[in-house]
């Protein structure tokens, strides 16, 4: 066994260790904690490269190597955990550590003035460790453990500026919404465990994703006629829906933008939200086993999410929220890709998206930083003159996201999904939804870029900025995201610690696409997909999707590029066109409100009802019993006092008074006694004389 398999655990363990150490450091140790975090990530990156090189030269199944060990015992069974190195793991490892390292470096600039700087790096390192744990896990249990820890760090980092009520609420919302999916995942996990007797994915033929176990799962059916494998697959997918922000559990992800921007880039764009997609890819053998119904559900949910979120993004004004909805939409594409085309298709988009979306978020962070914490795109404009590097790199990211033909990675990965959707035997509707989503994506990204970088600068200097207004409104006290943000001066380019990662990511956003073109599908082969030879029919589809992109960008230019916005208060051109639809989109189809009036209201009502039941019914019954008992004792007492005692007392009194009368007789005087005796004798004598008289 190569040494890297045995020591693969070091890759997540190093950032965890860094997190543990810096958690114990005092708050002033800023430089040591940041260097510890970055250093551990760099070493993990190098180890990941070693692991990656180990898998090169093999394809798919034969490249897989595992290391399993015992964790704990119940009865006579051991629960086993383990890690696996296969192409899927290797690709994710390299991506997470590479993007992570860049974002760590970027954060030293972005967070440099925050008083909890080192706490930030503690949480980031903990996140990186947990995420890498998800990636290498060879056991659904270990994956679940790390999955929950990832959720915890997401909670901690969204609520990093905990003094902002909006951030505290968003953090809670994120944790609870994802936990809805997680409890389903837990059920799926225990079901899988009881059916296959193991949670190890691969264990030399004995794992739950291997043939013998899968065929048993397919053979069993549940009471409602569904194959057990489908039931388990759907429960596991529910976990992925929560984590990856798919409809209907997408509501937490846009709110998660309350966290610092590097967090949005790392966790809520590149890595954690993709963990759901990764999970489906990991258990793909289970999902595709049997009738494949669970994969159909994956496809439909993905397709609906893709168009749903993209349409919302059209009407948003917050630069980060637009990107958040875009992330939700792209995650939908990935799910759809998994559903229609298999692991390689979905994962390819996951990897390219990680790079260009991290780039876009970090670019947005740079814009926000340069505009003194302004996030409203209506209040920006003309920034290409002030922030050239940010503008150029942002443009690369935007073109990649839109899927601009040939040169950009997003084109190749998205095109492949559409191609696979086109060939999906079940239905063509996901293909049309995906195509419409692509049109909207090109449209809203063009709108955003024109608003932010073109036209005249509408940044109202000297006024309170939007984010500050927000915090003041919520908090009632003056707390700013960044205490250092001076409110005067032009927008400015960001420091090199922030721009250099942007440039590197921009380069990757272009180059990565060439690893998976139809002409040279290296990536797909590496992940073990069966690639048919180059098919000229692909060309026509490519042309079609390019036309869609051009149409979307053209419409964007028509609405927002011809006449740039002059005033920040000016209504959106789309709003003037169709105010009703615009309002619907702007309010995100009122999903939050609907949930607020149904699920959340029901939960609160149910809690009150339980409390009421507790107080009035359960406690009331007890009180009733106790009152009955107390009442009975009262009756008893009354009997005692007024019946038993009274009679007894009267009797006693009678005896006593009788005694008193009689006692007069016995007063101890001899004369009295003699007198009584004398009278009695006289009476007796008279009686005898009277009685003895002869008749």
């Amino acid at each position, binding site marked *: 066994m190569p040494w890297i398999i045995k020591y693969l655990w070091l890759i997540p363990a190093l950032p965890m260790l860094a997190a543990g150490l810096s958690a114990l450091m005092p708050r002033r140790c800023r430089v040591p904690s940041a260097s510890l975090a970055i250093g551990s990530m760099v070493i993990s990156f190098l180890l990941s490269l070693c692991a990656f090189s180990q898998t090169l030269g093999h394809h798919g199944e034969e490249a897989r190597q595992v290391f399993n060990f015992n964790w704990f015992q119940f009865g006579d069974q051991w629960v086993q955990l383990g890690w696996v190195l296969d192409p899927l793991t290797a690709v994710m490892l390299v991506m997470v550590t590479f993007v992570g390292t860049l974002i760590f470096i970027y954060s030293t600039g972005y967070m440099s003035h925050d008083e909890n700087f080192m706490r930030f790096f503690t949480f980031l390192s903990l996140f990186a460790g947990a995420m890498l744990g998800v990636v290498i896990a060879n056991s659904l249990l270990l994956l679940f453990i790390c999955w929950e820890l990832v959720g915890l760090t997401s909670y901690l980092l969204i609520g990093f500026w905990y003094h902002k009520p909006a951030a505290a609420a968003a953090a809670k919302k994120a944790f609870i919404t994802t936990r809805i999916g997680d409890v389903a995942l837990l059920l799926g996990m225990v079901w899988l465990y009881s059916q296959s007797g193991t949670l190890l994915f691969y264990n030399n033929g004995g794992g739950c994703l291997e043939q013998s176990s899968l065929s048993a799962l397919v053979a069993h059916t549940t009471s409602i006629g569904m194959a057990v494998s489908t039931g388990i697959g759907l429960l596991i997918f529910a976990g992925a829906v929560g984590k990856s922000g798919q409809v209907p559990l997408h509501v937490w992800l846009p709110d998660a933008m309350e966290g610092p921007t590097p967090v949005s880039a790392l966790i809520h764009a590149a890595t954690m939200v993709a963990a759901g997609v990764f999970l489906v890819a990991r258990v793909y053998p289970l999902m595709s086993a049997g009738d494949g119904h669970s994969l159909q559900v994956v496809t439909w949910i993905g397709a609906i999410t893709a168009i749903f979120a993209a349409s919302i993004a059209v009407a948003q004004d917050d630069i980060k929220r637009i990107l958040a909805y875009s992330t939700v939409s792209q995650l939908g594409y990935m799910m759809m890709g998994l559903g229609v085309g298999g692991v390689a298709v979905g994962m390819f988009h996951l990897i390219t998206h990680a790079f260009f979306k991290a780039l876009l978020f970090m670019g947005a962070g740079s814009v926000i930083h340069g505009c003194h914490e302004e996030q409203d795109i209506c209040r920006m404009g003309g920034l290409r003159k002030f922030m050239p590097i940010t503008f150029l790199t942002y443009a690369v990211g935007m073109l990649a996201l839109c899927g601009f033909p040939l040169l950009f990675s997003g084109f190749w990965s998205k095109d492949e999904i559409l191609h696979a959707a086109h060939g999906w035997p079940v239905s063509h509707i996901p293909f049309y939804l995906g195509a419409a989503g692509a049109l909207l994506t090109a449209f809203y990204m063009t709108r955003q870029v024109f608003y932010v970088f073109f036209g005249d600068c509408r940044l109202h200097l000297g006024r309170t900025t939007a984010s500050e207004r927000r915090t003041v409104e919520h908090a009632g006290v003056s707390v700013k995201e960044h205490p250092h943000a001076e409110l005067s001066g032009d927008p400015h380019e960001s420091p090199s610690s922030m721009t250099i990662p942007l440039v590197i990511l921009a380069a990757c956003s272009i180059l990565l696409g060439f690893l998976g073109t139809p002409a040279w599908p290296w990536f797909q082969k590496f992940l073990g997909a069966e690639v048919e030879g180059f098919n000229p029919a692909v060309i026509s589809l490519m042309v079609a999707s390019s036309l869609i992109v051009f149409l979307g960008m053209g419409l964007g230019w028509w609405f927002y590029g011809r006449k740039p916005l002059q005033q920040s208060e000016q209504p959106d051109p789309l709003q003037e066109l169709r105010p009703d639809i615009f309002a619907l989109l702007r309010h995100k189809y009122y999903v939050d409100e609907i949930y607020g009036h149904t699920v959340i209201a029901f939960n609160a009502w149910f809690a009150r009802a*339980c409390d009421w039941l507790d107080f009035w019914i359960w406690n009331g019954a007890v009180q009733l019993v106790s009152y009955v008992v107390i009442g009975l004792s009262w009756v008893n007492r009354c009997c005692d006092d007024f019946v038993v005692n009274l009679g007894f007392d009267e009797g006693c009194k009678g005896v006593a008074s009788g005694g008193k009368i009689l006692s007069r007789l016995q007063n101890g005087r001899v004369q009295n006694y003699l007198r009584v005796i004398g009278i009695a004798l006289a009476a007796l004598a008279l009686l005898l004389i009277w009685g003895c008289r002869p008749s």
Partner: protein
Amino acid sequence: MSHFPLITVLTFVPLIGAIILAGSDNKAVARWLAMGMSLLSLALALGMWKCFDASAGGFQFEERHAWIPALGAEYRVAVDGLGLLMVLLTAVITPMAILASWRNEDRPHLYFSLVLFLQSGLFGTFTALNFLHWFLFWELSLVPAFFLVRLWGGPQRAAAATQFFVYTMVGSIALLLAFLGVFLATKDGANPGIFDFTALADLGRVDGIRAGVAMNLGFHLFGHAFTASAMTELIFLGALLGFAVKVPLMPFHTWLPSTYTEAPSGTTMLLTGVMSKMGVYGFLRILLPIFPYQMQALRTPLLVLAVVTIIFSASAAFAQRDLKRIFAYSSINHLGYCLLAIFAVATSGSGLAAPATEKAAAMSGILLQMFNHGLTAATLFWFVALLEQRSGGLRGLHDFGGLRKVAPVFCGMMGIALFSSLGLPGLNGFVGEFLIFKGVFPLATWPASLSVIGLLVTAIFILTILQRVFNGPLNSKWAAFPDLTLGERAMLAVPIALMFVLGIYPQLVLGGINHTITEMVKQLPF
């Protein structure tokens, strides 16, 4: 080791401490003496853990002496993995409870004397193997608990203490009557009856109690004779009531929120940390082995009650505004999972591939959950005690806000304890819950599926606590809120470290109780 009466010594060390303390009047000496005695018990318990032969399943450290042969009463004490784990839990929680009440200035010698008295009662309950002897300790532990609540409690202490005492007493009387029935039913020739748990379990496995009832007990009501089955069910229900009140199982729980809330926090730590485990212990030691068929017959309604307990208590916790009440309901919720698992294993599981494995998982989960809940809940009430000390008695959900800014260490450490209660992997709560669900899901699929709602609602109210108390803008009233002192950090570091250790390496506990689990599963007749 075999001749040293370790369990007797362990039980009487706190009792002697209690007697000495009751006579002393120096406050400082009282504290240190109480601490010393509880640490001595801890050392003895740890020694027992170390000398315990984990590779053997049965009872160890056994002491057996005749007591009142005519009543079938013996002095018989011994521990298996279950008893040992509970002894260890008692020994761990008591010093924590003493530390949490350290600043008690109101008759501390009496207070600590009662705490030690309670500890002695608990040790006795977890080691006695003869009903009369066991029942004596079971009741004895109630007396100090009553006085602790009655004399040192909050404003409503009189009502709460009375309710607690009377309620538990009713359960105990039902239990006593039930065992009187068992005793009379097991009369056999010269033998007046059986009170020995092991012997009763041997009978229970072959449904011998019912046979005895048929032979020795007849009961007529309005001219109708009760069948032996109905009579045995009645006896079972009596015993069940005693334990259901103690755990508690809904709807026999209403004494708990007010008692936990009114008791001084140090006492609440003992109530929730250890005394609530007496009920679960009773289920495992007495009900399940002695009345397996009766439990199987009533399994469905009992499972329904367990699910109701889990969901309703979590939701009721969400509706509370007092931190102590929230944790009180959360305590009901956490022990509800134990009850769910106990009822779930009372079946043959004949449709399953490996029912014994699932039962072992559920059993291991119960034991782990008992220990972990004791540790976590006691720690949480300790934090509430510290919060009350700093806020002058306030502990409402809305009395604080933004404390993280002024007391980051307090928030961080309490946050860990809260997440442990939530069942976050990596901390102690998770493994027990995982094992319970792993075992219960195949044995009782729908109750397990419904019970996850409890997990979800728990997350909601735990995060609401974090949001309201620690996050958000700082409530200006608490601008000078002091963070944990170095001493407090050092004390709290112990339970927090235990949470991590048990979360990452649960084998530490499971390795010791494993053979007991296998044995218990094997003892089940189906």
